[in-house]
């Protein structure tokens, strides 16, 4: 099966109201071309699951700028004043989650676990509305899995099948999110013939579609 798609086929996958997971940490490792195509598609009422809100005109910040977002599920919005503004104007809802819990919730969905127990945030507002479960005398906060209709991944190299490797700190949330989207699209910088099996980070069965950055 040929997984390589172009802009038109990518836009055809988008719908209003979708939950979309986006890789990256302060936009390093964020698939910017795919964000640009979402802007072009004009889909709206999106729930965006990403580590942070990026910057006003970079990363998922672009989707906020074009009023395409209904809800953000993130760990941090401090670098994007526009996110704070839209939140206080009640245009968007923002759910803030500790980063280590956030990534495990995504991994839980990927492996179809029922949730995760973390000690992080005990005796803080993170507890609010959550169930506390005590195991061997230690209290943990129960958090449910986080999945998405689409996961948008940024990779450094892909072979023909979609085996992926990442580069530097651009790896961050990408390998976990690549396992947690109902449909997973990887935007890759370099399309190569082969990747040494010892070096593959995300194996190809997780990847549904591939986009080459230059396209």
């Amino acid at each position: 099966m040929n997984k390589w798609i172009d802009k038109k086929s990518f836009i055809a996958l988008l719908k209003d109201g979708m939950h979309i997971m986006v890789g990256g940490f302060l936009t390093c490792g964020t698939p910017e071309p795919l964000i640009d195509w979402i802007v072009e598609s004009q889909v709206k009422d999106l729930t965006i699951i990403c580590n942070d809100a990026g910057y006003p005109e970079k990363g998922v910040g672009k989707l906020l700028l074009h009023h395409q977002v209904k809800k953000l599920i993130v760990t941090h919005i401090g670098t994007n004043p526009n996110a704070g503004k839209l939140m206080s104007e009640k245009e968007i809802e923002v759910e803030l989650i500790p980063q280590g819990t956030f990534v495990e919730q995504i991994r839980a969905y990927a492996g179809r676990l029922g949730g995760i127990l973390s000690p992080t945030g005990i005796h803080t507002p993170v507890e609010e509305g959550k169930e506390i479960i005590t195991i061997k005398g230690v209290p943990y906060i129960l958090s449910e899995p986080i999945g998405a209709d689409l996961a948008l991944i940024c990779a450094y190299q892909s072979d023909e099948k979609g085996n992926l490797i990442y580069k530097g700190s651009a790896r961050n949330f990408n390998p976990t999110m690549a396992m947690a989207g109902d449909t997973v699209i990887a935007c890759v910088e370099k399309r190569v013939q082969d990747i040494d099996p010892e070096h593959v980070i995300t194996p190809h069965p997780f990847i549904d579609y591939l986009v080459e950055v230059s396209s």
Partner: protein
Amino acid sequence: MMDPKEFIARRVAKELKPGYLVNLGIGIPTMVANYIPQDSDIYLQSENGIVGLGPLASNEEVCVHLTNPSGQFATVKKHAAFFDSALSFIMIRGGHLDVTVLGTLEVDEEGSLASWIIPGKLVPGMGGSMDLVEGAKRVIIATTHTNKGIPKIKKRCSLPLTGYRKVDLIVTELCVIEVKDDGLHLIERHPDVSIEEIIQQTEATLIIDQVKIMEV
């Protein structure tokens, strides 16, 4: 007098020992890296997936795939490693960090800190801070003593907490405070600052026995 933030960063750097794995937060904590000798056996862990974070990249060194947790282009040192965020937080919660250095809005007599939200005003979010204070063996707060004259070291934090009873040491431009079960112990003061001046600028009760002079 030395710039107060530089003074704090230099004093915190003295807490870091060879062989330590250390995570530095944003702001004054980031400056601590400037005072760690390059050839030291101290490794910086960066929650975006790096052990062995180095200085900021020069124009020639910039790689768009390599940033520090503040999003600036950075470098790595010899024996560095890259990994994903799930692994990064397993390293953090799993107790592998010897020290985490964080800034804060408030810290209190119980060693609780509040640093991620001022309800109705500023909502940056907690990012990785809650996991860092949960998992690190030692939590050091690096902060100016007051926020424009308003004490940051409180009897009880008034803002929503980042962590409950997590702080071990507080370093400000005026003094060093150790958090123990019975409260906050003033253990060092700036050479030009009296104990009375420190008490005046601190809301929390300070336990005072032997107070040394801060050295950077």
